[in-house]
């Protein structure tokens, strides 16, 4: 093959000359056998090989490294792709490598001229796709599988792949709750959520080991070799039980045959805040307080100090955001050693990452290492071992998930007053701005009251909260080729996940401060330890046969066992006498609460799959899996998940082959069932527990244990099942310069597993049940194009867009809708904000329609000057006599003149209409640029920050407000959007007032890299050197008024799109270097 290429392109004379040389060498070898062995060796050592390296189109390739395996010798091809290499022997193996091309090897043997055609690293339809229990050429795929362009994704300066996955693959929605490093709350949802309260994250299969709760952060993105996302039922049904949410199959980088290569990669840079809120100035703050309560304003800032409002015009005050937000360092280091022989391949790699958060005293660190070993034991037996250990930690107090608003960081930062409560004046009557003192002042006031907020900086500096995760994954497999066609594989593994959570509140934290009246624990702390051990055994028999060169059969069958055991222990200690000891001082305190729990579940499965194709033209797949789960009672334990798929490769038909510009054309149809068992290990059983809070102290004696039925149990609990129909079409044009994949699908999930709210009269608040039916249908389009490609310049694009429509088809008890609450702040927690209604998505915002502000003309004025709401004007839910001009007004939908529950309606959508990503790769000579955009369009966000900081719905006295509230209703400023101070209407209601468009377009990742020509590197013994710069979350275009539109704190499918005190998202800028030895 190589010779053919050679002769076709090169001038005859030269070819002739080389041919002569070839003949000469051949003669030499033929005569060689007659000589003595010593002489032969001598001769062999002097073999010289020449040749030329080209790409598939026949263009000469300069800069290709030609090395000799097992020696240090190497040369680089010249600008015409030619090389000459000496001192070889017959058994020498030449290795030809160039970035962007597959490495090739050639044994010298008797040839003296070795011409090589390097294949470009495959993209698009050429690639091999890893599917469940096997792999297949993408061309022959019958299901819908999206592959992540790993090389592009690896450019993103992130610690774990889920932070960079958004927008990469059509139909895969990746969203994060907020920006807290290591605790972003990232959810990956494939083709819409099936389950309302249960986990919707896909099943992860890493190097063949399936994991339901996979810690993405335990995997170093640098070590990922491929990532394939199985979306339709035919692809996922082989994972039956847990395939309903889609499957993400990850293969890590393995060793390759060839000399050892060391890759070192370092990236260093900064994390920086992307946005901040504008707060009221001290002047505005005092003015607001004055409107709120003249006596409070006098006491703190005005009358009692002989000051007037105007005295605050030029007072700077403190914007606490300046104090708590920082530009923080980011470090990412990777080191890998990979290599191997034909029998043994190895890969050893490790990484150190350190990302400091944009809020002080928060961040994330990780140390991680991986070993992979492949060994061919004999020609029938092959073994493989993978081990990964990751030790990660994240630290920093909760920004948004704490149960009390005041201990949420951003809340505290925005709420804390910009001026000290105990204002001081110098002898000239000027206000003394004592920033240093204020920054160290616990309450900004002399005597704290119960509701007073605590200095957020002190709190952030002193709160100790860490979460350390150690994850160990070890798995291995043995493959035995019983015959050439029949192989048996035993796969086993264990995953151990340990988490230690620690918190300690010293006297400078809000919780532990002795001056705070409702601190009843002194200085206190707690430690929690949990451990999850998952083991797996899989036994797969596979038979692959080609019959009559027309029928291709690939049949597999097997059974698997899996078990998960969890336990957790913890204890808390209060009144710790020596707070400076921190956690280790807990033993000196008084223990006050302890926790312990142990639980386990098991899963047994039988599986089978047949792949059959006729002349690679008509492809059929049928699979079947039976799963038994210990999570259900004996009669509901087993469930069966069949699937089938058909694909027609039209490009193999004559009528397509005749069209020269169509390079690929494939139609796919699949249908199948998958399941879900993500409920508690024993949710089907009623439980009685004896917590200490139910003890009762009869006769003033030590309390006697009391029992309470803590769970109703549901013996009827059964598997959730999802059926999915997928029709897809893959087409490639102009020699695969343009590839288009379109999929339409409809998923219907029945017997939804729901941790359903039940009325309190039952004695319970939630119970697991199978409830109703939900449908997701959608369209996914992926377009890969090679826009420009020539020797020096190349431009490739990937565009994907997905539309998913989520619809409730049926609810339990024939209900028409189901309401859900969001728990974030006492006063609001009891009101539903979300509705799941038949015919609508799983969650829509539900509440009153904001109808502006009551103006003077809505009132009659009494002779005494007071305002009485006109009879024809509806109230806002407050008693009519309390309503005043400037109060908030809601639409009276049922026209009964008063605002009641009946006036609530759908006020916003929580799910985007479409979302996607657009990636562009540019290469100019050795310079590459990747620009990646990601977007989400059409979803709303409930901006609860505005409930508190734009009108003070909680009616707290001394809290600051957003600058936007300066424009509130005042007698001389008839605002119709911002109610007057105190005009908040009835407490604990939700309205469309703070619902905002959450659409955004984000320049997610930009990376620029320069690769040095290996020719120059050779001298310094490097085979590759790259300098790069990358940025993450660089720009965001949005109309959302909050910090960041990608937000959903305390996220759940029933209650998404909620913004309250979210940890601000950072943009990351790094510079890096990647060297290969």
């Amino acid at each position, binding site marked *: 093959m190589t010779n053919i290429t050679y002769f076709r392109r090169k001038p005859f004379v030269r070819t002739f000359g080389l041919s002569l040389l070839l003949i000469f060498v051949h003669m030499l070898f033929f005569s060689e056998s007659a000589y003595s062995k010593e002489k032969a060796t001598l001769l062999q050592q002097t073999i010289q090989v020449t040749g030329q390296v080209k790409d598939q189109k026949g263009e000469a390739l300069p800069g290709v490294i030609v090395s000799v395996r097992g020696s240090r010798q190497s040369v680089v091809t010249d600008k015409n792709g030619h090389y000459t290499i000496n001192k070889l022997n017959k058994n020498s193996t030449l290795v030809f490598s160039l970035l962007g091309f597959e490495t090739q090897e050639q044994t010298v043997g008797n040839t003296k001229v070795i011409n090589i055609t390097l294949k470009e690293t495959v993209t698009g339809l050429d690639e091999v796709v890893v599917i469940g229990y096997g792999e297949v050429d993408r061309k022959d795929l019958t299901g819908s599988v999206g592959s992540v362009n790993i090389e592009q994704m690896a450019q993103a300066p992130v610690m774990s792949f889920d932070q960079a996955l958004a927008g990469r693959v059509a139909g895969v929605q990746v969203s994060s709750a907020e920006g807290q490093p290591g605790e972003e709350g990232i959810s990956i949802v494939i083709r819409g959520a099936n389950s309302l309260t249960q986990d919707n994250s896909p099943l992860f299969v890493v190097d063949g080991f399936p994991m339901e709760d996979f810690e993405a952060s335990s995997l170093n993105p640098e070590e990922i070799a491929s990532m394939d996302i199985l979306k339709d039922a035919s692809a996922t049904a082989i994972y039956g039980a847990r395939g309903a949410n889609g499957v993400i199959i990850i293969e890590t980088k393995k060793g390759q045959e060839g000399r050892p290569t060391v890759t070192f990669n370092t990236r260093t840079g900064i994390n920086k805040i992307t946005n901040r809120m504008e707060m009221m100035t001290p002047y505005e703050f005092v003015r607001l307080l004055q409107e709120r309560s003249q006596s409070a304003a006098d006491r703190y800032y005005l009358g009692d100090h002989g000051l007037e409002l105007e005295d605050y015009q030029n007072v700077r005050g403190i914007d606490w955001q300046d104090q708590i937000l920082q530009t923080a360092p980011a470090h990412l280091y990777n080191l890998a050693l990979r290599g191997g022989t034909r029998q043994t391949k190895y890969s050893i790699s490790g990484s150190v990452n350190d990302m400091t958060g944009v809020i002080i005293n928060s961040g994330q660190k990780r140390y991680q290492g991986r070993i992979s070993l492949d060994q061919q034991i004999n020609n029938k037996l092959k073994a493989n071992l993978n081990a990964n250990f990751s030790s990660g930690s994240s630290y920093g107090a909760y920004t948004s998930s704490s149960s009390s608003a005041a201990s949420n960081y951003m809340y505290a930062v925005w709420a804390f007053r910009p001026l000290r409560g105990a204002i001081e004046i110098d002898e000239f009557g000027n206000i003394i701005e004592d920033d240093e003192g204020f920054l160290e002042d616990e309450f900004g006031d002399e005597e704290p009251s119960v509701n007073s907020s605590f200095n957020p900086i002190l709190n952030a500096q002193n709160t100790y909260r860490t979460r350390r995760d150690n994850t160990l994954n070890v798995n291995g497999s043995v493959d035995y080729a019983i015959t050439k066609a029949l192989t048996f594989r035993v796969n086993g593994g264990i995953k151990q996940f340990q988490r230690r959570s620690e918190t300690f509140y010293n006297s400078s934290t809000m919780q532990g401060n002795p001056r705070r009246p409702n601190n009843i624990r002194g200085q206190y702390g707690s430690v929690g330890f949990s451990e999850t051990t998952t083991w797996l055994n899989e036994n797969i028999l596979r038979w692959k046969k080609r019959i009559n060169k027309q029928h291709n059969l690939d049949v597999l069958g097997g059974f698997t066992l899996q078990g998960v055991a969890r336990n957790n222990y913890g204890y808390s200690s209060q009144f710790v006498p020596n707070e400076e000891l921190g956690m280790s001082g807990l033993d000196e305190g008084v223990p006050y609460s302890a926790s312990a729990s142990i639980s386990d579940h098991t899963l047994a499965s039988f599986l089978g799959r047949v792949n059959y194709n006729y002349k690679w033209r008509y492809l059929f797949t049928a699979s079947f899996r039976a799963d038994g789960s210990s999570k259900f009672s004996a009669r509901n334990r087993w469930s069966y998940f069949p699937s089938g798929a058909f694909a027609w490769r039209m490009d193999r038909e004559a009528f397509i082959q005749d069209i020269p510009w169509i390079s690929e054309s494939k139609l796919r149809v699949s249908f199948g069932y998958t399941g879900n068992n993500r409920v508690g290990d024993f949710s089907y059983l009623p439980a009685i527990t004896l917590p200490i809070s139910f003890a009762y102290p009869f006769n003033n004696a030590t*309390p006697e244990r*009391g029992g309470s039925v803590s769970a109703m149990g549901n013996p009827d609990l059964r598997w959730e099942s999802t059926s999915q129909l997928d029709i897809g079409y893959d087409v490639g044009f102009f020699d695969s310069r343009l590839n288009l994949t379109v999929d339409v699908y409809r998923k219907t999930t029945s017997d939804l597993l729901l941790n359903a709210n039940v009325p309190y009269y039952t*004695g319970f608040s939630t119970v697991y049940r199978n409830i109703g039916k939900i449908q997701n249908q959608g369209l996914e389009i992926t377009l890969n194009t090679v826009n420009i490609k020539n020797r020096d310049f190349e431009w490739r694009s990937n565009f994907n867009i997905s539309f998913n429509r989520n619809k409730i088809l049926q609810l339990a008890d024939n209900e028409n809708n189901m309401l859900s609450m969001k728990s974030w702040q006492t006063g609001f927690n009891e009101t539903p904000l979300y509705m799941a209604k038949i015919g609508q998505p799983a969650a829509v915002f539900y509440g009153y329609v904001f109808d502006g502000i009551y103006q003077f003309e809505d009132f009659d004025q009494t002779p005494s000057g007071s305002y009485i709401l006109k009879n024809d004007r509806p109230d806002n839910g407050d008693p009519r006599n309390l309503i005043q001009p400037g109060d908030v007004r809601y639409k009276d939908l049922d026209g009964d003149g008063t605002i009641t529950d009946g006036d609530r309606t759908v006020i916003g959508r929580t799910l985007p209409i479409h979302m996607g990503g657009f990636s562009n790769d540019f290469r100019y000579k050795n310079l590459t640029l990747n620009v990646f955009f990601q977007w989400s369009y059409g979803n709303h966000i409930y901006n609860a920050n505005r409930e508190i900081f734009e009108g003070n719905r909680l009616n707290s006295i001394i809290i600051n407000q957003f600058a936007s509230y300066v424009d509130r209703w005042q007698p001389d400023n008839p605002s119709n959007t911002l109610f007057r101070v105190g005009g908040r209407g009835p407490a604990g209601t939700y309205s469309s007032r703070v619902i905002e468009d959450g659409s955004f377009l984000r320049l997610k990742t930009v990376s620029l890299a320069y690769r040095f020509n290996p020719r120059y590197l050779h001298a310094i013994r490097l085979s590759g050197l790259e300098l790069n710069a990358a940025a993450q979350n660089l720009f965001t275009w949005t109309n959302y008024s909050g910090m960041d539109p990608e937000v959903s704190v305390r996220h759940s499918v029933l209650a998404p799109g909620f913004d309250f005190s979210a940890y601000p998202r950072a943009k990351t800028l790094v510079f890096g270097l990647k060297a290969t030895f």
Partner: protein
Amino acid sequence: MVCFLMPSCEKFLSTTPQDFLSTPNYYETEEHLQTALNGVYSRLQQDALYGANLWSYYDIADEFYWSMTNVTQTAPDIAIYRHSPSDAQVRVLWQTCYKGIGDANMLIANINKPIMDEQRRSTILGEALFLRAYYYFLLVSNYGKVPMPLEPVTSPAGNDMPASSIREVYDQIIQDMEIAETLVLPIQDIGFGGRISKSAVRGILARVNLYMAGYPLQDESRFAETVRWARMLINDPVHRLNPDYTDIFLRYARDEYDIGESIWEVEFWGNRADAYVSSGRLGSRNGIEMRNNDFLDEIGFAYGQISAVGRLYRRYENGDVRRDWAIAPFRFASNGTENPWNANQLYERNCGKWRRKPELVIPKNRNFTPQNFPILRYADVLLMYAEAVNELLGPEEALPALNQVRARANASLYIGANAITNPDVFREVLREERSRELCFEALRKMDLIRWGIFSDTMFWLGIEIAGEVPASRIYAPYAAQNVSTRHLLYPIPTYELSLNRSLEQNPNW
């Protein structure tokens, strides 16, 4: 390989819970029943009931107002009648009662499961029946019509349960309590007021019947029942008034019992320096304000969140020992000294009935106290008796009971020329007497409601307070001013309405 045979596979899949006991495996011994019963009792201690709310938020009427409002604080909505159906405090009362009912239902359903002493079994059954009925009594008096499950709810399906009428709920309460009365032990055998005794059941039956006789049922035939039950206690030699009014409350603080006077009390215990959480907020929330940590153990930390209204102070005549105990005549200076209030400083006075100084559990906790709370005192029994007898037979028969209560307080007696002869006058006097004797004991608001005078009383109270309150306490009339007729009942919690579609919201909510 284990799994090739289905039976071994089933074995592999049959896991058993290690972290909890499942109800089918419980209620198998006497100890199990007792533990379950303790759980039913424990709801009484929670913040939503006698831990805090029942004697603070839920009892705001014409005795006190929420005084922890100042330039840095606002009153909770519930404390000024600004609560909405979604207010958490509206929900917790509902939820806590039903949790107690659910546990009681499960216990009652399994009462015959263990082989055990029959006497013990019937005692446990009696206590459980009574407590369930008492939780329903709290529900019906606070929310009106409510769903009334009497069996454990074991299936999540069919969650819609319509409310039973007020009449049905009361009938069930009477039925259960009357059965309980035959089952539980006499108070002498128990020896302390923390467990349900025959006396407790009888006294509460007197109260339930009295409520039935008033608004909203207005079933006047019930006065006779009140008389019948109260008389049983009056005729029981165990019960008598503690001759020293203040001693009643010192005993609660010191964890001492007096079964003569204190017939049923909620037990509180400890200071939370350990893992137990059986202490309540009595005395901390509604004590005499003292926030200096230096006097934590000597005086005890108290927020002083509850202060008397002027009207309550004026209800007492000079010399009535109850006035200056129930209403703090002084405040604590930050150095711990007691500074008496001026005679005209009526609205500054904190509730003084629950003082922390005598507490013996040291160290004291700022927020939680071991003080027991009385649900039923003998003085209340006498007054209930007097009230019902007056309605049936007139003042002459009723006066001795009233005078007995007044005599103990060193108040003037209605005898001789002062004797009341007009039943309407007696009614008015008795209504005030109940406040004088029982103020801050979680009874007043319900009394006003059953007498049908709650909204009127609050309306005029609002005007009265506004007219006399000092400017520093301008928020004192808020609660009274905000009351409208809808406040006779709490709204059904929004949460519950969203999930049980058979429920209807209470009028005007």
